């Protein structure tokens, strides 16, 4: 006798079943129900497992990696290559190459660790002795700028912690003074003073700013510069004061990050576009699969329960 899962059975019909046949049919019913239940649960669990496996690389990227970039801000220093040597993994060597004064490399993703930071002349053999400059601790999810600051004779690599988030609806701005021509400069944005008599090689902390287009003015003893700077809400900027041509000053507007997420998404302008994790696929197919699996399991459980109930009454 084969039960029709889900079909109504009358008490009289069940009373015609023999004792041994009842036991057998109960076992079959239980087995069929369990198989259906297991299939349903598997169907529900599979998308979840798949989701976990898919999310793993993204989670890894956000929890164990940081970002670093190089800024060459030493006016009379020839190009250098910057090497990062991991304390724990000698293979995890990172090289930041640049072109010249005023250049900023894109962000590179690096594993979270302690690193020795060293310099070589641009194009020097990687086996030649580097000159150590500092060490840096790359924290997970954090971004840093290694800035070559100071005159060539006393070039130092300063590690600047780059902010990636802003207060809601605001922008963040900081200033790096990298002009050797004017040793001290005052930087204003509209009527607000961003930096007063900022010495060569120094960096201000970030300041919160209202979004909008600001007229940024830099003035030193010998030169000055003015430039419009547009600050969108959620963006983070570093304004670099550089030596310009003909004895003037120059303002370079670096956009550190855009968006208020910890891992900013965005294009090249954010500097993190190439390293930002890809967006997760749509959750709709997984949700449908999970719902179908749960529905299947529920139906099987109901059917199993009713079969047991009928069998109990049939004794």
């Amino acid at each position, binding site marked *: 006798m084969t039960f029709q899962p889900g079909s109504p059975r009358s008490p009289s019909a069940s009373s015609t079943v023999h004792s041994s046949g009842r036991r057998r049919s109960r076992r079959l019913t239980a087995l069929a129900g369990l198989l259906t239940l297991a299939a349903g649960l598997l169907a529900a669990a599979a998308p979840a497992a798949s989701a976990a496996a898919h999310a793993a690389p993204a989670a890894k990227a956000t929890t164990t990696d940081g970002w670093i970039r190089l800024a060459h801000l030493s006016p009379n220093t020839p190009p250098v290559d910057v*090497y990062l*040597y*991991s*304390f*724990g*993994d*000698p293979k995890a*060597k990172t090289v930041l190459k640049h072109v010249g004064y005023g250049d900023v490399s894109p962000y590179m993703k690096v594993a979270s*660790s*302690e*690193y*020795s930071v*060293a310099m070589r002349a641009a194009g020097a053999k990687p*086996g030649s*002795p*580097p*000159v*150590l400059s*500092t*060490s*840096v*601790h790359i*924290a997970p999810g*954090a971004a*840093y*700028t290694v800035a070559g600051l100071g005159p060539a004779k006393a070039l130092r690599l300063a*590690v*600047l*912690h*780059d902010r990636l988030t802003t207060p809601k609806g605001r922008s963040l701005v900081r200033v790096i003074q990298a002009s050797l021509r004017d040793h001290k400069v005052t930087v204003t944005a509209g009527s607000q003073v961003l930096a007063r008599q900022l010495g060569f090689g120094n960096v201000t902390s970030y300041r919160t700013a209202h979004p909008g287009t600001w007229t940024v003015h830099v003035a030193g003893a010998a030169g000055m510069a003015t430039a419009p700077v547009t600050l969108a809400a959620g963006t983070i900027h570093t304004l670099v004061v550089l030596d310009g041509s003909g004895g003037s000053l120059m303002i370079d507007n670096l956009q550190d990050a855009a968006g208020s997420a910890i891992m900013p998404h965005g294009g090249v302008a954010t500097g993190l576009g190439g390293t930002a994790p890809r967006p997760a696929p749509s959750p709709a197919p997984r949700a449908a699969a999970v719902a179908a699996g749960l529905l299947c399991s529920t139906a099987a459980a109901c059917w199993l329960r009713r079969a047991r109930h009928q069998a109990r009454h049939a004794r």
Partner: protein
Amino acid sequence: MVVVAVLVAVIFVAGAATAVLSGAAGPGRQEAGRPALAAAAVARQRAAAWVAGQVSADAIVACDPAMCAVLQARGAPAGRLLVLSPSRADLLGSDVVVATAAVRNQFGARLAAVYAPVTLASFGGGGARIDVRVVAPDGAAAYWAQLAADMRDRQAAGAMLLRNHRIQVTGAAAADLAGGRVDARLLVTLAALAALHPVDIVSFGGAGGGASVWVPLRWADIMAVTPGGGAAQPASLQAMLGFFRAQQPPYLPPSLHTVRITHQRTVLQIEYRVPGPLGLLGARG
């Protein structure tokens, strides 16, 4: 001006002698004082020799006039010495203080509790004892906090170096790395060196006699090894030597020597001076 300086020196020497002799009393006091004075003079000479060889060449050393005179005789330029006097009981601007009995009497308990909390090395005993101490520019509390943070960073960095497969390390040296006892300058240079040449760390050392347990170990004996772990060619040792010579302060070791310890084993001895900078590791911008 010269007369005043001489008078100050005389007063300090007299004070030091009084402090040294304070234990002697009764008949024969002068006789008993002679060995004590001799012991004080010996301690001064030993302390001066240690300062000349172990304290950073650009560190400003605070000392009493008698001690400063001995340091100058050992070649310390006057510009590096901050002479303490009754009218100048201020360690501001100095990096290290040579704490003789006269200096201890001048500052009392505040010397260790406020101005110079950590002992780098100690010479002599009793009233003749001389401590070389690190000056805490922002006070003892701030210094202890910086030192504790520095030690945590050194522990974390040491643990990473222990995982570095291009670094071989013996039991005692491994314990020094894990315990955060190794100077940050050594940790930073060894991490970069290992990326270029596999290294065998034979030992760490460098704490002076009587030094506080908090003082990091600032010298290392290392050997060049092949990537497979065998003894490397002498050229590898020369390459390592070239690596260290290419550095700039604070990573340039003032002392670099190669020493043959057995027929086939030569070590490179790297030594940094005191006081080591705090906060070199863990730079977070």
